[in-house]
């Protein structure tokens, strides 16, 4: 298979929070990302799913070093990003771009579209003014807008169009990896389909690699080759999309898949209803973080934390009961 583009190894990110009264010095930690490892090969799309607070967005920010990991290593094309100086990391970011969830908040309302798309080129000092202009026009065409749109402000565009502008901005530096953090969740279904198609087209045209974060399981399944399911900062199951969706092994993945809204009024599906909410990541439950909500939990789950291990080829699960449920 093709080369490994991104390698994430034992990455942890703990955020310190004060425990107790307002001025208390006592510190506790939110384990937002807790020992996550994975690889992305060139040209692949890897999907990350999980509920709010599972650490999927933190993971995205760790990869392009918007935040620094507490420990662990991120390697891009074999080069470690974790030890780089801020200046060096900025150069690397040319190759790792990001598309954010909220197309209303991620564009500066006082800048024209042309300036917004040109900004990455200016920052990285690429091309002359004329070349930049040309590039911007080109990008606008690529994402399905027209060159004259460059002269407008963000408020003149609808959500779907703004997301196209965001895509143009991410693409203008010819990156190799694009991290999409919930790129379509703020959009209406008919528009969502437009943007997903665009992302797919661009992937083939520019040989892009995607890390695709979403909470919509159908969207992730549609676009990804491989998928990682996260729960409370840990990867609980990972494998090819086919495998994980067809034969989910972790009880959490099963519950997640069974909760997806029905495809038709005639569909009968057995639902796994989880008890309660996701526990606080400050004091996660002992043993397997999921045991309190797990309908299959046994005594062992309360004390020993399971490790992510191979269930079958290309399918890893972090559950004591993998294969037995």
């Amino acid at each position, binding site marked *: 298979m093709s080369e490994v583009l991104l390698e994430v190894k034992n990455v942890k990110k703990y955020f310190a929070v004060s425990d107790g009264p307002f001025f208390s010095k006592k510190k506790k930690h939110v384990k937002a990302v807790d020992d996550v490892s994975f690889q992305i090969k060139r040209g692949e799309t890897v999907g990350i799913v999980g509920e*709010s607070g599972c650490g999927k967005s933190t993971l995205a920010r760790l990869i392009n070093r918007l935040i620094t990991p507490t420990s662990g290593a991120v390697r891009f094309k074999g080069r470690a990003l974790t030890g780089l100086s801020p200046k060096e990391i900025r150069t690397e970011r040319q190759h790792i771009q990001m598309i954010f969830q909220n197309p209303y908040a991620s564009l500066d309302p006082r800048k024209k579209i042309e300036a917004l798309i040109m900004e990455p080129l200016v920052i990285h000092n690429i091309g002359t003014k004329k070349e930049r202009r040309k590039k911007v026009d080109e990008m606008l065409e690529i994402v399905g807008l027209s060159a004259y749109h460059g002269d407008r402000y963000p408020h003149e565009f609808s959500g779907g169009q703004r997301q196209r502008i965001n895509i143009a901005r991410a693409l203008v530096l010819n990156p190799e990896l694009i991290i999409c953090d919930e790129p379509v969740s703020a959009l*209406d279904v008919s*528009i969502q*389909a437009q943007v997903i198609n665009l992302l797919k087209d661009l992937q083939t045209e520019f040989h892009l690699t995607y890390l695709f974060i979403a909470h919509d399981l159908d969207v992730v*399944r549609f676009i990804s080759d491989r998928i990682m399911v996260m729960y409370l900062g840990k990867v609980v199951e990972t494998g090819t999309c086919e495998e994980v969706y067809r034969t989910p092994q972790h009880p959490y993945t099963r*519950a997640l898949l069974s909760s997806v*809204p029905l495809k038709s009024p005639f569909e009968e599906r057995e639902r796994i209803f989880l008890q*309660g909410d996701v526990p606080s990541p400050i004091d996660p439950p002992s043993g397997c973080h999921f045991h309190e909500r797990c309908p299959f939990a046994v005594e062992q789950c309360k004390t020993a934390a399971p490790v992510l291990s191979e269930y079958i080829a290309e399918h890893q699960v972090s559950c004591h009961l993998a294969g037995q449920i």
Partner: protein
Amino acid sequence: MENQEPLLQVEDLAVSFTSSSGTVKAVNGVSFTLHHGETIGIVGESGSGKSVTATSILRLLPPRTSSIDGGRIVFEGENLVALPPGRMRRIRGNDISMIFQDPMTSLNPVFTIGNQLVEAIRLHQQVTKKEAVKRAVEMLRLVGIPEPERRIRQYPHEFSGGMRQRAMIAIALSCHPKLLIADEPTTALDVTVQAQILRLMKELQNKLKMAIILITHDLGVVWENCDKVIVMYAGSVVETTSVNKLYVNPLHPYTWGLLDSQVQAAGDKQAKLTPIPGTPPDLRNEIAGCPFAERCGYAKEVCFEEKPELTEVEAQHHVACHFQTAASRLERNEVLI
């Protein structure tokens, strides 16, 4: 159920908003009927007027910038549009209740959950404070909040998103309304929590025998929870029928587009989705013909000139399209996947 007097009848409702940049006809001739114990879903994209329709039933629209320009909202024989504010206030929360999308912004952060529940109960029922607190605890238990005696003294920020929505439901149902309007009640929640909340709403509906208007943009939520469905586009109803009929035999081209844009389960790597081209129209401009004409693959000249009426094309199946009538049908194009 059919020969029963309907609980709610909305007839030809029209709502507009005025702003410095012009008048927006947000709702343009919406009609539907709702019977006791029934669930009706209103689906549509942002700006289609689904929330405005629901808020106007409760007359909660901002009085200075909006106006109900026409139509009637008949609830148990009373026209809500013409009701004086005092009488309306007694219906609100008592007979008709509403839950909103974002439970964080719809709960008051400086009062405890208990305060807010007791307020709702005491506003509408002649009970002592002690009795109201007792009922509040019962309500929280009913919506599945563990340790309600302790939770009742907590503030909204101490609740998680799912718990807040449960608390909202408890407040909305504290006076046993006959009609509950749920405006995207699960959009802000995770899927596993969404499943919990929708199941809870169904259970409570059976227990308390109320009707529900469920506003959503997710057809999956409609399939599972509704009896009837209204599809709205740009302020107008384009299709309305039972949920099963809409799935088996959708007739309006917009409904087709909506169904086709759904992400299908089959994960073929080469597969493409079928979006509806373009974007919804700007409602500040007068639309002469069918509001969907510009994005419709079947539109002909007449569609741009004349607005189609919502007509009964088949039994219990209303569609607003020039080419989908009792006499003639459109051939639905093969979707290219």
